[in-house]
């Protein structure tokens, strides 16, 4: 890998930043493009992530709407903001509060997986609801963009090394 890309390090702030920027760019089509087309007895509709949440809310499925909203909209944005904050912190000459920053990193590392909810949902519905003329559910291109955002944010978190905070803090492992 290094012969092809001299100086490239898999686990570095630069790699984490590049992956985060790519995820942030893909977040636009992920939210703009439709993720699911449904046709129930002739009532066809195409939903983006947000319009899907609104529809669930309109059907009085508030808890489900809240789960999908948090997993598919709040968490990806929070994760990108959090990674941005950590990357900014690591650029400071001295780490101010490495313990707090490590906890933020651990939280981002844990919550990222829940964004996969919409991808699993699209796959399951697409496999189950295939009744020809009566009812069909088809995943659309937005789910590819959204899935890519999830993968890139997970990879960005893995590429970020929280030990950097402690090296800047000056305390060496004993």
């Amino acid at each position, binding site marked *: 890998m290094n012969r092809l890309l001299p100086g490239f390090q898999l686990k570095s702030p630069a790699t984490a930043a590049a992956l985060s920027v790519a995820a942030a760019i893909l977040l636009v089509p992920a939210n703009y493009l439709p993720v699911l087309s449904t046709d129930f007895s002739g009532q066809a509709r195409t939903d983006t992530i947000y319009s899907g949440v609104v529809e669930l809310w309109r059907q009085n*499925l508030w808890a489900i709407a809240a789960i999908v909203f948090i997993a598919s909209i709040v968490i990806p944005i929070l994760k990108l903001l959090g990674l941005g904050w950590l990357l900014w912190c690591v650029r400071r000459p001295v780490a101010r509060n490495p313990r707090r920053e*490590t906890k933020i990193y651990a939280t981002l590392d844990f919550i990222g997986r829940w964004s996969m909810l919409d991808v*699993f949902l*699209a796959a399951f519905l697409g496999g189950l609801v295939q*009744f*020809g003329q009566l009812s069909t559910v088809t*995943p659309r291109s937005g789910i590819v963009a959204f899935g890519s955002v999830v993968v890139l944010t997970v990879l960005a978190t893995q590429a970020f090394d929280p*030990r950097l905070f402690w090296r800047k803090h000056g305390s060496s492992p*004993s």
Partner: protein
Amino acid sequence: MGPPDATLTCHFCGQIHRAARLEPGEKARCVRCDTLLAHGPRLGRDAPLVFAVTGLALALPSALLPFVTAGKLGDHQSCKLFTGVAAMWGDGMRAMAVLVLVCGGLMPIALLASIAVRNLPDRFRALRQNVRPALRLIRPLEHWAIPEVQVLAVLVALVKLHSVVNLQVGPGFWSYCAMTVALLVAQNSSEYDSDPADNASGEPAPASS
């Protein structure tokens, strides 16, 4: 007590700790960043192995038995664990199909196998040593084992669909739920939150509290 030179490294801050055996209920936290490093066995020292083997045994019915059956005006459609993966693959979304297959099927099984091998009794030490390179490969991929998210997605889908089609939950889904619980219990009853194979001594070693 563990071997005198056994150590455990915090994977968040790199702090190295001297190892010590923990009693049930005891927790070992990193002295520097407060990350949980290890805890005493909550359900007995064999619990991770027992639950990992249980999870592996449940993987087969999860994959082969019907997950959910949907009915509409006399027409019935049954799906299994990987029906959605096949549908996505057929729709040309191959990368997403592979992602769902890996996160919902392959990695949970690999993680269960990894926990089972790590916790094998001492008489299987040779086997443990032989598969250590494979365990090291699986370790960074553990993030991708997320069957609990798949279970939540199926529950969301069932609530969403119940007003438009008749639904019947099959034994495949219950097996998958049980496999997910077994995986979570096996993970949480393991003594180590980091892989003891990463220890400087190279031997599984308890952590200091």
